């Protein structure tokens, strides 16, 4: 039952992605990407990951708001047509070959529903599941992995987010036009 539902939502996501990329109107394409993200959130909920589902839902709302507020209000002119003919042909040929190799690789994967922790008994996840509750005292195993076993990864993630946010602030910086630029030009 879960498998069928996940397939249904994946087909919905594929259709939404095609609509998002092929529509002429930018506003409706951004909203289509929002629909794709909400379907991904429902898939996470079906696959036994409720905390990721809630995070994905909130991030999706914020993504749509940022895209609409920041980019679309500048320019609503529709741009149609693709790139020039030769480059487009080469890119499409590359995509075709890439998808052939990818499909060949994906057919050799194990059957859906049999994760690696069933076949390999020495996988670290088995240790986390069996003794994570006793060792850390946290009943949510995900928090135990994120903040205790792999705290260094979370620290690196916070560094990446911090760098991204302050990099965006540095890109959007404006010089005050009254004093500083004038003095700077005069000194030159």
């Amino acid at each position, binding site marked *: 039952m879960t498998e069928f539902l996940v397939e249904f939502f994946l087909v919905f996501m594929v259709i939404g992605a095609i609509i998002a990329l092929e529509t002429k109107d930018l506003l409706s394409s951004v909203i289509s990407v929002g629909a794709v993200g909400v379907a991904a959130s429902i898939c996470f909920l079906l696959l036994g990951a*409720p*905390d990721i589902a*809630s*995070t994905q839902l*909130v*991030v999706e*709302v*914020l993504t749509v*708001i*940022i895209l609409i*507020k*920041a980019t679309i209000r*500048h320019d609503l002119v529709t741009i149609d047509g693709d790139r020039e003919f030769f480059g487009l042909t080469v890119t499409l040929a590359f995509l075709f070959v890439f998808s052939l190799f990818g499909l060949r690789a994906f057919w050799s994967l194990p059957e859906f529903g049999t994760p690696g922790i069933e076949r390999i008994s020495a996988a670290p996840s088995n240790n986390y599941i069996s003794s994570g*509750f006793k060792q*850390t*005292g*946290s*009943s*949510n195993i*995900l*928090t*135990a992995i*994120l*903040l*205790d076993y792999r*705290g*260094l990864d*979370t*620290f690196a993630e*916070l*560094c990446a*987010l*911090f760098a991204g*946010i302050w990099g*965006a*602030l540095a890109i*959007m910086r*404006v010089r005050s036009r009254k004093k500083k630029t004038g003095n700077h030009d005069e000194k030159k």
Partner: protein
Amino acid sequence: MKKNNRTGMSLIVKNTVRMVEGFIFLFGIYLTLYGHISPASGFSGGIVLGCVFILMTIAFGKNVILESFGKTPAYIFNCSAALLFLVLGCCGILFGGFFSNFLEKIFPSANFRLFSAGLLPIYNIIIAVNIGTGLFMVFIILAVRRVIEIDGTRRLISTEFFDNFKEKN
């Protein structure tokens, strides 16, 4: 108050936001504090906390938010939370390793309580403060900046105190 009513969205939206914003803020705090015993974490709680301020920015207009909160507290909270995370991680070196949970080793506590699992709730609170303030300040910068055309050249200007400037002249 009448002066504030001119900016932002319509009156229905403002009244609805005034009623709802406290509950959303409370939900974000719940998600953060109960991160170690329920399906939540500091990440989702922090994003919800940031979304409350973004909702107020959209509903009341950016000038009201900039006058009442300002950007400087968000900068200070963001940097100090990132620094505190590093300091708490380095404190674990004294007790056996980087990011070791030393509070749990010294004071072992009962399971399934709010104050349990040692340092994990504190880490969650720090992550939530960092992410919430970071998203709020990025959004307010993106909302304030605007590209306009002056004398044939395009400039990126800040409309932060634009309305005050227009009223004075």
